[in-house]
C-alpha cells in the first residue's frame, strides 16, 4: 500500500510485518522513532504476540536480544552511533554464537566531538564483527531490506544490520510502498532456530573454545558470509517475484555502460550522485555509478566485474580510517587488485556535512581528468585546521580542539545561510 510516511515509521511497519517476537528499545537519535512506533504497535495489541522491552542500555538491548534469539524467538532491535559502540561486546557475541538477530542502524557519526548527524562511522566500526551489513539507498529499500534481512539472517543463522542514513532517511517523509502481511508471510517463513535453549533437549551454548577449534569456529562465520554472497541475489529476485520491485542485491550499477569513470558509494548519497551523473551524461561525460548494497559480505567479484571496464573509479564514502584514508575504498581497491585502474577516494559528509551536487560536479570532473590526489576531503576547511595546528605549535595549553574549531567557524548559520 502506497503511503506518504516517515522513514522510521515505514521501517517500523516493515519490522512489524516480519512478526518479531522480542523487541528491545533504547533511545538514541536518529533511530528512536522506529522503536517508538513499534512500542505503540505492541502496546495497542496490533503487533502480537510480541514482548517489547524497555532496556537500560544498548548493551542490554543486544544482550536481551541474544537471550531471546537463543531461546528461539525472532529478535529485533535498533541503534546508532554511541549506542552501537556501547553494545559492541554483545554485538560480537551475537555473531559468534550464530544468532540471527536483525538490527537497524540509523547511521550516525561517533564522538568526540559528540555529533548526532549522519555518516557511516558507526556501522563501519563493526565491519569485522561478523554481522552482515546491508545499506539502503532510500526508504523503500530500507523497508524491503528489513524483510529480506530476517529471511537471510535466519537461513544462515547469522545476524544482520540494516543500515539507513540517519535523518536523511529516518526522518524523511517520502512515498513508500508498505507491503501487506500476506506478501511478507509468503516470503518469510516462521523462525526455525538451529540451536535453541529447550529443557526437553538441554544443550550448552557459549562454552569456552581454545586454540584447538577457535579458528574453525571463526572461519565458519566467514563461510556463512560467503554463502550470503550467493543467497543475497537469489533472495532479491524472490523478493521481486512476490513484491514486484527490485530491492537489495549485492551491488547495483547506474549508467555504467561505456563509463570511463565510475563513482562508488553506499546509502542515500547515491541519489545525489545519480542526479549529478545524469547532468554530466547530458553533457556527454562517460560516467556511471556503482552502488554497494551489501557492505558485509563484501562482494569482491561483483565489484570487480562492475569496474573492470572503466578506466578509473572514485569511492565517495562517509567514513574515515584515521591515519590511512578510506574504509570502503580499501575494500574496493582490494576488489580490483591488478586490474590497472586508477583509484581515488573522497571522504565526504562526515558528521552530517551536506554533500551538494555542485561539489560533486567539480569532484567528478577532476577525477575524469586524473587531477585528484589519492585521498580528497570534500569541503574540508583547511584554514581552520591549519589555524588549530598553528595554535598548538605556539601554545602548550592550546585548549579543547572542538571548542577552538567552533570559535573559529563562528555562528553555524552564517555558513549555511
Amino acid at each position: 500500500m502506497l503511503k506518504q510516511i516517515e522513514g522510521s515509521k515505514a521501517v517500523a511497519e516493515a519490522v512489524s510485518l516480519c512478526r518479531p517476537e522480542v523487541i528491545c528499545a533504547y533511545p538514541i537519535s536518529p533511530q528512536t522513532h522506529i522503536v517508538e512506533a513499534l512500542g505503540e504497535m505492541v502496546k495497542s495489541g496490533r503487533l502480537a504476540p510480541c514482548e517489547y522491552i524497555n532496556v537500560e542500555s544498548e548493551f542490554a538491548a543486544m544482550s536481551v536480544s541474544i537471550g531471546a534469539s537463543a531461546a528461539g524467538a525472532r529478535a529485533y532491535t535498533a541503534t546508532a552511533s554511541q549506542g552501537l559502540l556501547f553494545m559492541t561486546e554483545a554485538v560480537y557475541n551475537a555473531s559468534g554464537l550464530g544468532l540471527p538477530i536483525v538490527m537497524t542502524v540509523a547511521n550516525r557519526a561517533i564522538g568526540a566531538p559528540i555529533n548526532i548527524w549522519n555518516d557511516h562511522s558507526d556501522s563501519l566500526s563493526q565491519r569485522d564483527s561478523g554481522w552482515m551489513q546491508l545499506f539502503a539507498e532510500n526508504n523503500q529499500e530500507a523497508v524491503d531490506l528489513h524483510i529480506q534481512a530476517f529471511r537471510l539472517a535466519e537461513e544462515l543463522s547469522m545476524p544482520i544490520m540494516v543500515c539507513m542514513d540517519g535523518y536523511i532517511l529516518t526522518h524523511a517523509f517520502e512515498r513508500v510502498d508498505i507491503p501487506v502481511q500476506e506478501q511478507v508471510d509468503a516470503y518469510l517463513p516462521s523462525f526455525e532456530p538451529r540451536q535453541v535453549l529447550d529443557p526437553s533437549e538441554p544443550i550448552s551454548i557459549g562454552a569456552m573454545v581454545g586454540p584447538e577449534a577457535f579458528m574453525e569456529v571463526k572461519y565458519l562465520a566467514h563461510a556463512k558470509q560467503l554463502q550470503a554472497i550467493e543467497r543475497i541475489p537469489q533472495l532479491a529476485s524472490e523478493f521481486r517475484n512476490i513484491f514486484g520491485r527490485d530491492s537489495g542485491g549485492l551491488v547495483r550499477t547506474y549508467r555504467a555502460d561505456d563509463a570511463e569513470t565510475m563513482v562508488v558509494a553506499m546509502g542515500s548519497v547515491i541519489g545525489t550522485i545519480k542526479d549529478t551523473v545524469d547532468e554530466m551524461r547530458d553533457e556527454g561525460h562517460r560516467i556511471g555509478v556503482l552502488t554497494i548494497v551489501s557492505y558485509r559480505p563484501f562482494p569482491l567479484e561483483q565489484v570487480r566485474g562492475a569496474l573492470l571496464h572503466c578506466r578509473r573509479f572514485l569511492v565517495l564514502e562517509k567514513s574515515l580510517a584515521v591515519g590511512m584514508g578510506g574504509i570502503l575504498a580499501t575494500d574496493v581497491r582490494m576488489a580490483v587488485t591488478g586490474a590497472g585502474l586508477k583509484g581515488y577516494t573522497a571522504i565526504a559528509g562526515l558528521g552530517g556535512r551536506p554533500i551538494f551536487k555542485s561539489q560533486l560536479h567539480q569532484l567528478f570532473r577532476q577525477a575524469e581528468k586524473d587531477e585528484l590526489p589519492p585521498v580528497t576531503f570534500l569541503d574540508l576547511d583547511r584554514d581552520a585546521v591549519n589555524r588549530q595546528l598553528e595554535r598548538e605549535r605556539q601554545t602548550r595549553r592550546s585548549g579543547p580542539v572542538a571548542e577552538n574549531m567552533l570559535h573559529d567557524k563562528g555562528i553555524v548559520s552564517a555558513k549555511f545561510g
Partner: protein
Amino acid sequence: MGFQTIKFYQTGTYTVGNRLLLPDQRSVQAGESRSNSINSGHRACQGCGEALGARYAIDAAMAESDNRLIAVNATGCLEVFSTPYPESSWQVPWIHSVFGNAPAVATGIAAAMKVKGKKDVRVVAQGGDGGTTDIGFGCLSGMFERNDDVLYICYDNEAYMNTGVQRSSATPPAARTATTMPVGPEPGNPFGQGKNLPEIAMAHGIPYVATATVADLRDLEYKVKKAMKMHGARYIHLFVPCPLGWGTASSDTIRIARLAKESGLFPVFEAEHGEITGVLKIRRKVGVEEYLMPQKRFAHLFGSHSHPEMVIRIQEIADRNIRKYGLLDEEAA
C-alpha cells in the same frame, strides 16, 4: 521470643539429618530424582564453594520447576570450570554470553518463553560477585527494576577469582587480593568501600531477596525453592568460600562459611518486596578472629606485624550487622 522451633541437627555440623525428616522434607541432593544439573568431572578446585553452591541451588531450582529450567551464566570460574570445550557439565539448557550481561540474557529468554506461551519454563541467571556487583550491575538493576521473571544467583567469593583473585566491590576490608596487596600502613582492601548488594536489590522492591551460605545448604535449598515458587525478579546472594583465593584449606570451605555467618560478618536473611521477613540467627557467636585467622588473605592482620586495630574495625562491622539485622536471640544477646 525466647525460643526457636527445634530442628534435628547432625552432631557438630548443624546440618539437619535427612534420616530424621519426612521424605518430602529431605534434601534435594538426598533424593534419587536429583537432576545433577552440574555433573561431576568439572574443573573446579577442590573444596570450591561456588561449585558446591551452584550444584545445590540449580538442582533445587530444577526440582521446583519440574526440570523445566534454563540457566544463564556470566563469565567467571563457574562458567570456565564447567564448560571446557568440548565438554560441558551442564545437564540443563545453559548459555554463556559475556561477563556483564547475564541478567539481560536471562530477561531475553524469559521474554521468549512468555511470547511462546511456555509458562512452565523458568529462568535462572548466575554470576560471580564481580559479574554481579561490578560489571553486570547495570543489567542486574535493569532486570530488577522491570521485575523480569528471572531468579538471579550471585556466587559471592569476594573477588575476581577466575582472573587470579583481584578486588571486586564485594571484597571485604583488609582482605589481600592481587590488587589490594598487604603492604603499606593499611594493608589489604581499604575500609569504607564496597556495596551491599542484597540491600540494593531490596531497594528495588522486588518480590524476593535472600542471602545464604554453603554452610547451611538446607537453608539454601529452601530459599531457592521458595524463590522458584514466586514470579518476577528474585535475587539470592550466596556466600561461597574460595580455597584458592582465600588461602583456606579445601576441607574448610563449609567451616569458613559457617564462621562468616556465626561471627555476624555475613548476615543471612530473606526479604519480600523490600522488607526483611526472616533472619537466620547466630547459633554460637564467635569473634571475627576465629573467622579471619584460618584465611591467608587476612594473615597480615595477625602474627609479627599484626594489625589489631584493623581486627577491631572488622569486629565493629560484625557487631553492626548483628544489631542491624537482629542476628542474636535476645536470650543469647
